[in-house]
C-alpha cells in the first residue's frame, strides 16, 4: 500500500480534486439512476393498481 495516512490518501498526490470528482460523480449518477427507477416503478405500480381496482379506468368509460 502506498498511503502513509488518510490525508495522503485523500490528497491523491495533488490530484485529489480530479480523482474524487470522477468517482463521486459516477457514484451519484448510479445512485440517482437506481432511485429514479425505484420511483418510476412505484408510480407505474400505483397507476396499475388504480386501473385494476376501478378508479380512473379509461377502458370502462
Amino acid at each position, binding site marked *: 500500500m502506498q498511503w502513509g495516512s488518510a490525508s495522503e490518501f485523500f490528497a491523491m498526490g495533488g490530484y485529489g480534486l*480530479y*480523482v474524487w470528482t*470522477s468517482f463521486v*460523480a459516477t457514484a451519484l449518477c448510479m445512485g440517482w439512476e437506481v432511485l429514479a427507477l425505484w420511483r418510476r*416503478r412505484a408510480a407505474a405500480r400505483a397507476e396499475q393498481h388504480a386501473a385494476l381496482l376501478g378508479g380512473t379506468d379509461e377502458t370502462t368509460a
Partner: protein
Amino acid sequence: MSMDINWLKYSSPQAFYPLAGRLIPWFACVAVVLMGVGLYMGFFVAPTDFQQGEAYRIIFVHVPAAWMSMFLYVVMAVWAGIGMGLNARLSFMMAQAIAPTGAMFTFLALLTGAMWGKPTWGAWWVWDARLTSELILLFQYAGVMLLRTSIDDVRRADRASAVFALVGVVNVPIIYFSVQWWNTLHQGASVSMATGSKMASTMLTAMLLMTLAFWLYSIAVILARVRCVMIERESLPVWNEKPIVIQETVEAR
C-alpha cells in the same frame, strides 16, 4: 437434452417480467461486491503510475464507463434491429430500457475524461477525434430518447428510434479506432486484443473488475427499467399481480 430450456418462452413479456424480477437482485449483489473489490484494488493494491502519478486512478471509472457507453449502444441497436426484423414488442422495450443507462455512461466517460485531461493535458476538453466522436455518441443517445418521447404512437416511436439507433451504430467503430486512425491527444488503447495489456497486472485486474461490475450493474438497472416499461405499456397487465389483487379486481367488478 433433459436440461433443455424453452428460451422462446421468455420472449413474451408475461414470462419475461417475473424472470427479470428474479434476476435483478443477483446481478445487483454481484455488481456491488465486484465494485467493492475493484475499488479496493484500484486504490490500495494498484501501484502509483510512474508517468501520471495518482491521476491515472481515474482510469478505474473512466475506461469502464467508456466501454459501457459503446457496448450498450451496440446492444441497443441489436435489440432495435431484432425489433424491426421480427416486429417483437419486447425487443423494442429492451432498446428503450438501455438508452438512458447508455447515455449516463457516455456522460460519465466525458466527465471523467475531462477530469483526467485537465491534469495530464492541461485542458478539460480538446476537439480531437476520440473526444468528439464520444460527444456525438451522447447526442445519438439523446436523439434516440427524444425521438421516442416526441412521437405519441408507441409503434411509430419504436420504429423511428430503432432506425435512428441503427444508423448511428457506425459511430461506435469510429470511436473505438479513432486513436489509431487519427493523430489524437487521447492516449491509445491500454488493453488491446493484438498486443495484450501495457498496464501493471494489478491495475489491469482492478480495471477489469470495475468493468465487470459496471456491466452487471447495467444489466440490473436495464432489467428493472424494462419491467417499468412493461407496466407502463400494457394497459392492464394482470399477469404480474399477486393472486390476491387479481381476486380483488374480479370481485370489485
